[in-house]
Structures are given as C-alpha cells and as structure tokens.
C-alpha cells in the first residue's frame, strides 16, 4: 500500500510539473528557451510513462522527444530568428478553440474504462491469448516484442515504412544529402575551371 502511495505522489508531482511547464512554454517568447524546455517536458513525460509501466514508450519519448527533436528544433532555429513575433490576430480566439477542444477531449475520457481496469474491453479481446500462449507459440519472454514483431508484424512493417517515408520527405523537401552533394560537386568543378582559366 505504501509503495502505491509513493507512486501516486511521484505521478502527481510529475503531472504538476508538466502542467506548469506547458503553461510557461505557452507564455514564452524566446524560441530558444522554448525548445530547451520542450526537451525537459519530454523527459518528464518519459518519467510519467515509466511510472505507468510503459517502459518501451518512455525509452522512445526520452530519446526522440528530449534528444533528437531538441537538436532538430535548434537546427531549425538556426534558419530563423530566435524570438517569436507578436501575433497579428487576437489571441482570444485561439484560447477559446484550445479550451473547447480540451473540454471535448476531457468529456470523451469520461466514457473510458478506469486506468488499469482488468475488465476493460482492450484486455478482453486478444490480450489473454497473447499473455497465455505467446511463450509456447513464440518462445520469447517479452510479450511486447512478440506482439509487435510477430503477431502484429504487418503493423510494424507499416510503421517502418512510415519512418522511411518521413526521411524521404525530409530529404526531398529540405534538400538533404543528395542535393548538398551535387551542389558541392558543382562548386568543385567550377572552382577547378576557374583555376584552369587563370
């Protein structure tokens, strides 16, 4: 019981930190500070997910959210100003839209089963089969890996393709490695031409 109380307290503290940080970032005008605080936000979210026993998700959140996306934010900041411009429109409209969406989402959660409820529909369908038979069928102790890589292999293949598409898009849109390389080669050839002429 004591362990549960400590867990609940840690979750509450993390949650308060997340809310305070989100409000602070929303008010911040310095994009550099906002990018840094987004990293801390992701790290706290990863802590929250660890508390909820979703260690795989926490791993990804910490590495992508706190690590790589912060670096990408900084890279994007290098191409723009570090200060957010004052919005032209009234910000009250945005606040209303966000509040209404938030209220709708909160209203939607009222119908959801309680967190960790063993009678929730998601735990009644195929989950018992995975938990009981995966050791015999797949022979791997980690059921999450069995589900992701074998039972749901199609989904994971699709996800890998989505990630691949993201990189193709980034390379095409941002003029990634291929474009940079050909431009460098052009520079080299034009440079050698210039030397030859002189």
């Amino acid at each position, binding site marked *: 019981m004591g362990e549960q109380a400590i867990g609940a307290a840690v979750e509450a503290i993390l949650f308060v930190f997340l809310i305070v940080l989100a409000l602070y970032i929303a008010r911040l005008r310095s994009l550099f*500070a906002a990018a840094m605080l987004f990293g801390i936000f992701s790290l706290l979210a990863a802590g929250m997910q660890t508390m909820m026993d979703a260690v*795989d998700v926490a791993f990804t959140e910490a590495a992508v959210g706190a*690590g790589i996306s912060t*670096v990408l934010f900084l890279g994007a900041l290098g191409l723009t100003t570090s200060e957010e411009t004052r919005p032209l429109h009234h910000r009250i409209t945005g606040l209303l839209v966000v509040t209404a969406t938030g209220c709708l989402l909160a209203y939607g959660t009222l119908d959801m089963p309680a967190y960790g409820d063993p009678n929730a529909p998601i735990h009644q369908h195929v989950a018992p089969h995975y938990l009981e038979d995966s050791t015999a069928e797949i022979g791997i102790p980690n059921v999450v890996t069995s589900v992701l890589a074998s039972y749901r292999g199609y989904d994971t293949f699709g*996800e890998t393709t989505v990630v691949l598409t993201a*990189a193709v898009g980034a390379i095409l849109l*941002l003029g990634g*490695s291929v474009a*940079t390389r050909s431009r460098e080669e052009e520079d080299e050839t034009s440079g050698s031409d210039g030397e030859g002429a002189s």
Partner: protein
Amino acid sequence: MSDATESIETPPSTPIKMRVRETLVLRVVGKALVPFILLFALYVQFHGDYGPGGGFQAGVIFAAGLILHALIFGLDALRDAVKPVVVEIGIAFGALLYGGVGLVSMLQGGEFLHYGVLDSHDPAHGQHLGILLVELGVGITVTFVMIAIFYAFAGRSRQ
C-alpha cells in the same frame, strides 16, 4: 527569473555548430559518453526479446549517440564517419530486410511475415530468427532515418 531568461536568450546564430566544440569539459565528457550510448543502443536492440526495448528504441538511441558526436566534433566529422550515401542506402536496407524476411517466409511455404516456417525443425526457433532480423531491420532504418533528417536540417544554412 528574468536573469535566467536573459542569459538563455542569446540568439543562437549557428546552433548546430555550437560553442560546445570550444568547451573542454563538454568535449571530454561527451567524447567519453558516445561509445557507451552506442553500446547501450546495441544492448536495447538485441536484448529486446527479454527486456524492454527493440528496434525502434535502439535506433533512436544509436542515432542520438551519433548526433551527440556531431554536436561535439561538428557536422563534417559525422559526415566523414557516416557518409550521406551510406545513410541513404541504410534507410532502404532496413525496410528491405524487414520485407525480405516476409518474402523468405512466403517462399518457405508460409504466409507473409510468418516466421514459424523459417526453421524447419522448431517453429519457435523460426520465430526467434524472424523477430531478430525484423527488429534489426527496424533498428537500421530508424537509425539512418534520424541521421538523414538531422543532416537535412543541420546541413542547411541561412541564405
């Protein structure tokens, strides 16, 4: 509070080629950390059958380690170590490895991505092999995709 905001509000003109390279402590500590991050990524990759983790997590951790290297020693150092051509081939190779495992399982007489038929003696061994290869494919693709996006962002300068 205002002091803190002012100190971090220094405009980052070229953030990727940050001042990190000039700071000795960050350089030494970062250099020592990179191999351990890469080793941990490999652990997450190949221990995914037994503990939390798998291809995606391993891929992002591996890429994060390499990007840390680029932050310390500059983008060109990483470009020399991991050539853009290698990155582009790696992106496709991982996904092809995944799909290839599916095709091989079809050629062995099973359904697409049915790993049980990969080992003729014991379906569980086939599952082990299939999951290992598939996770490796995911790991390779994710690693190189993250580096490709990093190259695409960091390689651009304000014009």
